[in-house]
């Protein structure tokens, strides 16, 4: 009995040993889809099909909620990607961090809404509407609820989502050819 108990213990130890590193790996990955450089490149390219959209050097306001770890991590990641200035076509994106309670005062040409901002995301919609500053995000529900005009996703395949009502409210229009190849709602 003792022997069998030892064998069982060894087996459990091995299984635990195998699962532990896997747990660390999984634990270190965010449970949400953090924005990647590919997402930002696609967002920049998609903005090229916006009438009177941002051009040249554009300051990107990375909107985050300092009380949300998820939002802070996403914001840090995006800031790192843009820190050297991300050049895509005729756009060069440069970052500035914007807390959710600083949105109205932010002097930016484009908002990037991080994941985990929640209901505060609607504050961006207000600025989008009044100052005609576009907002993009990888948090697609924020597009569906009207906080952001455009959402992008690069994996597993490129998807672009545009909220027509939000775009109309903000006076933003997109090329007709572009509209026919994306998802609008």
């Amino acid at each position, binding site marked *: 009995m003792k022997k069998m108990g030892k064998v069982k213990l060894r087996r459990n130890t091995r299984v635990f040993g195998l699962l532990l590193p896997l747990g660390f790996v999984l634990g270190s990955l965010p449970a949400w889809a953090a924005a990647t450089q590919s997402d930002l490149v696609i967002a920049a390219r998609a903005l090229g099909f916006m009438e009177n959209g941002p051009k040249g050097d554009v300051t990107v306001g990375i909107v985050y909620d300092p009380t949300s770890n998820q939002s802070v991590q996403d914001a840090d990641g995006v800031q790192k990607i843009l820190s050297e200035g991300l050049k895509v076509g005729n756009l060069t994106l440069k970052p500035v961090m914007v807390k959710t309670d600083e949105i109205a005062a932010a002097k930016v040409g484009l908002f990037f809404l991080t994941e985990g901002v929640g209901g505060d995301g609607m504050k961006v919609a207000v600025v989008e509407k009044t100052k005609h500053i576009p907002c993009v995000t990888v948090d697609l529900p924020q597009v569906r609820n009207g906080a952001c005009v455009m959402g992008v996703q690069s994996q597993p395949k490129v998807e672009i989502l545009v909220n027509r009502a939000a775009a109309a409210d903000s006076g933003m229009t997109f090329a*007709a050819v572009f509209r026919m190849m994306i998802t609008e709602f």
Partner: protein
Amino acid sequence: MTPMSSRARHIRLFGRTVTKSTWFHIASAIALITSGTDAHAQSMDYGAFEQLFGEPVTTSATGSPQRQSDVPANMEIITQDDIRRSGADNIPDILQFVAGIDVRRYGASQADVSVRGYDQPYSPSLLVLINGRQVYNDTFGYTAWETLPVQLDEIRQIEVVKGPNSALFGFNALGGVINIITYDPLADSTDVATVRGGTQGLAGASAVGTLHFGDRGGVRLSAGGSRSHEFPTAGLPPSNAGVPYYVTPYHYAFSADGRFKAAPGVEITTEATASKMRDFEALPVVAPSGDISYRTNSLKFGINADTRYGLLEVLAYRNNLQITQPNISGIDTHENNTVYVVQANDLFKIGSDHTIRLGVEYRDNAEFSGVLLQGTVGYNIYAASGMWNWNVSPKVSLTNAVRLDYMTLNYTGTLVPGSRYTLADYNNTTLTVPSFNSGLVYKPTADDTIRLSVARGIRAPSLIDLGLQDISPIAPGFSVLYIGNPHLEPTSLMNYEVDYDRAIRPLRSTLRLAAYYQKTGDVIIDAVGIPLMPAVGGLAAYSQNVGGSEAYGGEIGLKGTDPSGLRWNASYALISIKDHGTLGALTGYSSAYSYSQGGTPTSVVRFGIGYSAGRFEMDLQGKWQSHFTDFSANAFGGANPVRINNYTTVNARVGYSLTEQVTLAVTGEQLGRTQIFETAGAPVQRRVFVTMTLRR
């Protein structure tokens, strides 16, 4: 009003007189288009959209811009990278490695292409276009590939639609469509020069250059040509005109393509082309044509605008084709075909889920030949079309497209004595022909796509099918007549298809499966392909509808790339054909119709592998094809069956970049054997050639 001022009010446009009133209407139409434009550029920038979506985009499936993965049709897109890596110096040699495409090479410069079987000399069922302009030859009803005024270096992509697409393109999009898309003269800078030389005395060169006028416009110019020695013609039957075979085929072409921003949201496109080609050709009927020359030219003008009423486009073009065939009698035959096409389309979205396209088209097609037609035969087509794409849900979309073509036939000239038709038969004949495409696309996951489609395609009788008036006196009072038929019905084809695409991420590959069933009705055979029958004053044959055919088959293919530089593909295509009615009874008389008696290879396997490393690029492509039966002219005006054995052919290319601008490549075609009988025409020889390319 003086005669001088009266003349001044008339201007020649495309060879026709345009009155002041017409100009007023054109100006009014342009004003209507441009009123209410949005300022954003409206054109399809293929390069920008491909970069954005990570896959090619197209308008060839529905007329609406779409990502390749979204189209409701079985479509292959051959990119410029594919073209370069193929090492080929002509388009049919590139197409032969696409699953479901049949290519038959009858000589160094004649190859015939079809989609899913039914290939033949002068293959009639595949519509070929360059940037939406038809380059299909309405005279005989086929595509003479070497006359196409396009250089391989200026092609962005070759779009291949398998199955009918008449609801978008109209007549002749029966078995499939190939739309060749060139680089954009405004958005792209294409500056390439190529020289080529090799076995069979091959010598060729081409140059492509782009001029930009700020960001307001651009023009791309291209010119090129090549010549070589013909494959051996010793075993071929005597040519039909008795002239020696022309054994140093050549072709050259010029093209100017422009795009200009006329106003915010309004763009103008222009194109002018010319080409010349001379070779010998196998015909779908008795003996080959020993020496045939083509001259083509075209003019195209388009205006499109992004308006509050949608994307409006008006496109007008004129194609001219002149064919000359020497005859030992001294009476050479000349055919002169001119086609005018005017198309107008409006493409718009309703809400977020519905895309609509409405279109109208007018076509004026006329063919003059003093010898073959004894006059001019032609037709006018008035067509209306519509397409509705409904994104039912994020995973499901449904597309329906319909088109109605109304054709009126006309003939001016003198019908030969013995023709059983009258001028009234020609000038009172009309046809009303519907076509449609329906496709359901279901994407259960990001990796899986299922397509269900049903479509009806139509093929117009060629102008020779309709109007041939050929009389060959054999003895005093006794002649042989080959006569066109004004009462021919268009060939129709119903296609039912299920496709499944799956991304296999661990293999970085895409699996494509297709299964289809096709039913063809009213197959057209021209008079020279019909057995002669007693008639007043001799013997006669008339173009006829000769029954139908059905086919089922499918394709399975795997294609992948790896970041290491490795790429691979493999596919298998299967088809089984059964003929019905008179078509079956006539089997064996001509290679134009012998489908069910082995006229199409049942199985084709294709494979390819390639690798890029540093300055090297190496690619190998192969094809194994099962046997089939072709036909060769006999001394009695008919044709004898010729068994074409199964064969394997392997092509390879090795490219090396000497500098960032200069690439040197060696291509070997048919590496396994020095000579293969791919058809009853001239045996295809091994070719080896070197290509040097300078890109700026």
